[in-house]
């Protein structure tokens, strides 16, 4: 149920973002880009939360919790189809992948810089052209 709601939220955010990016107003386009970046970030986080047999968190004793400490496999064995690190057969664990959260942090910082830059650019365009209508920006005949 929760997964369905999360997927639905991401889908709606993508829809809103795409709609706003296609507007004629520059400020709405920028808001649309922000919404799209949040949709992408949510999608990345959502790929990290699942239950299964994979184990990315390694603590000092070689596991990611007391009960799984002895049952992790760290060596790849391609002939058996084992992509390390995984749990041995018969073990299962619920976890949240920390790597995707690190990825999202990086992506948020990057999109912060981009948004700051593009907002200043939009203000300069307003100063130069006296409008925020994207249809007026055709002096280059692009």
């Amino acid at each position, binding site marked *: 149920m929760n997964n369905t709601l999360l997927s639905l939220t991401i889908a709606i955010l993508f829809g809103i973002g795409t709609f706003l*990016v296609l507007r004629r107003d*520059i400020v709405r*386009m920028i808001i649309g*880009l922000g919404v*799209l*970046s949040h949709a*992408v970030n949510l*999608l*990345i986080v959502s*790929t990290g939360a699942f239950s299964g047999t*994979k184990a*990315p968190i390694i603590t000092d004793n070689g596991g990611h919790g007391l009960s799984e400490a002895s049952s992790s496999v760290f060596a*790849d064995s*391609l002939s058996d*189809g084992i*992509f390390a690190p995984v749990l041995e057969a018969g073990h299962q664990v619920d976890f949240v992948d920390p*790597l*995707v959260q690190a*990825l999202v942090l*990086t*992506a948020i910082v*990057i999109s912060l*810089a*981009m948004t700051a*830059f*593009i907002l200043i*650019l*939009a203000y*300069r*365009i307003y100063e*130069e*052209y006296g409008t925020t209508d994207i249809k007026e*920006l055709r*002096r*280059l005949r*692009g």
Partner: protein
Amino acid sequence: MSIITHLPIIMVAIPILMSAVMVLLRKEPGIQKVLAVSVSFLLSIFSVFLLLQVWSGGIQVYEVGEWGKYGIVLVADLLSSGMLVLTSCVSFLALIYSLDYIEKRSLSASYYPLFSLLMAGLNGSFLTGDIFNLFVFFEILLLSSCGLVIANEQGGVTKSSDKMEATFKYLVLNMLSAFVMLLAVASLYATTGTLNMADISVRLSEMSSSGTLPWHVFAIALMFIVVFGNKAAIFPLHYWLPDVHPTAPSPISAMLSGVLIKVGAYGMLRVFFLIFTDTLYIFKPLIIYLALATIIVGATSAVAQTDVKRLLAYSSVSQIGYVFLGIGFGSVYGIAAALVYLVNHAIAKSMLFLTSGGIIHHAGTRDMRKMGGMVDSAPFMSLMFLTGAMSIAGLPPLGGFIAKFQLFDVGISEKYYFEIAIALLFAIFTLFYMFRAMLLMFWGEKRDVSEYGDYSTHGTSSLISLPIIVLAIAVVIFGIYAEPLISLATATADQILNPQYYIDAVMTGVVR
């Protein structure tokens, strides 16, 4: 532990450090100038060392933080280090050119720091072996190049509002493609559980050989075509390029057209021939036909241009199509031809953009209809433009001829007759639009002085003419003595088509 083993990280870390130092030194233009030029020179020497090291000692892997394949690795194989040599030499020359071309205040306040950051982004995206890191370096590239497009040149031929408009288009389209890349990277991570490119390659080929390759890997590969296609401006995604490249100051146009769009071609070679090798049977024809469409659209649009830099920008669109044509053939000789083409186009097009900067400065306008008869008043610029135009058009003694000849030879020997026929037809268009520009600008009557004013009388400074001469010599050398470049390109193509070399070099690392 000599300095040689640390070369990959040095190539990325020094420019990042320099950009911070340059901001601190903005009140000292003299020191900034010496420091920027010497560091850029040092980086090009280092890149040559790295290439020699890779040529003699095999693929160099540098584990940042010594986390093995779980951390970020910098991998210098022949493709990466070759691209590094190309970019650091072109950016060194562009930097020397811009010392005299960019307005002084803009130069010390923002130009030096952003140029260093651009070099860091380029070196990083060529060296990294981690696919999320590739995304981060792409963003560094994008933001620093946006700042550089807005930089003011001396004389102010391009209006400020034009720069804003072009940058806005560039930024919005590239932000959208960045989101697509993030989606693709996230899906790839969710599929394979790793971000290391060599590791992803191993896992995907394992899935493919056991027949469990998920269908969405094809969708991910298509997303990467969108991302790299947008960077390289291939057909449906090329509309930003003819606006951005002409409005940028000439040394930045040279960097954008010479090096930055090649990042797209590099990404295509790296990601498709390392990670998505098992999906290539679907995507090779797609790449070939997109490349043909790019050639046609670029060449036909370039014919009608009256703005000299806009013509060169459309020509870049057309020429990158030829590079992608070679990539689409996908054989050793096809990729080697694409690489030779890439290098020759990078050198000749940077040179043409630098020359166009001198021409614009001389004439005070970018409109070719308002020029004419400049062969008398600017003989140096006309000779250099002729050299570049001949190389782009593919006339015999110059580098462009070798590149085009090799590409068409490969196409014919691999029986792509229809594709080569179209490419050949539009190569004739190239000849036409390049020499039309030549005729309009340099030959004929001198322009109407009462209407447009006289040409500027002061000649070109040595800082502006030196980089152009160096690039012109390179164009001639690659035409007359092309064997070393061709053999390097063939070795590189061989390494690209055998991803096992790359995988073996990266995957030996263990967690310490």
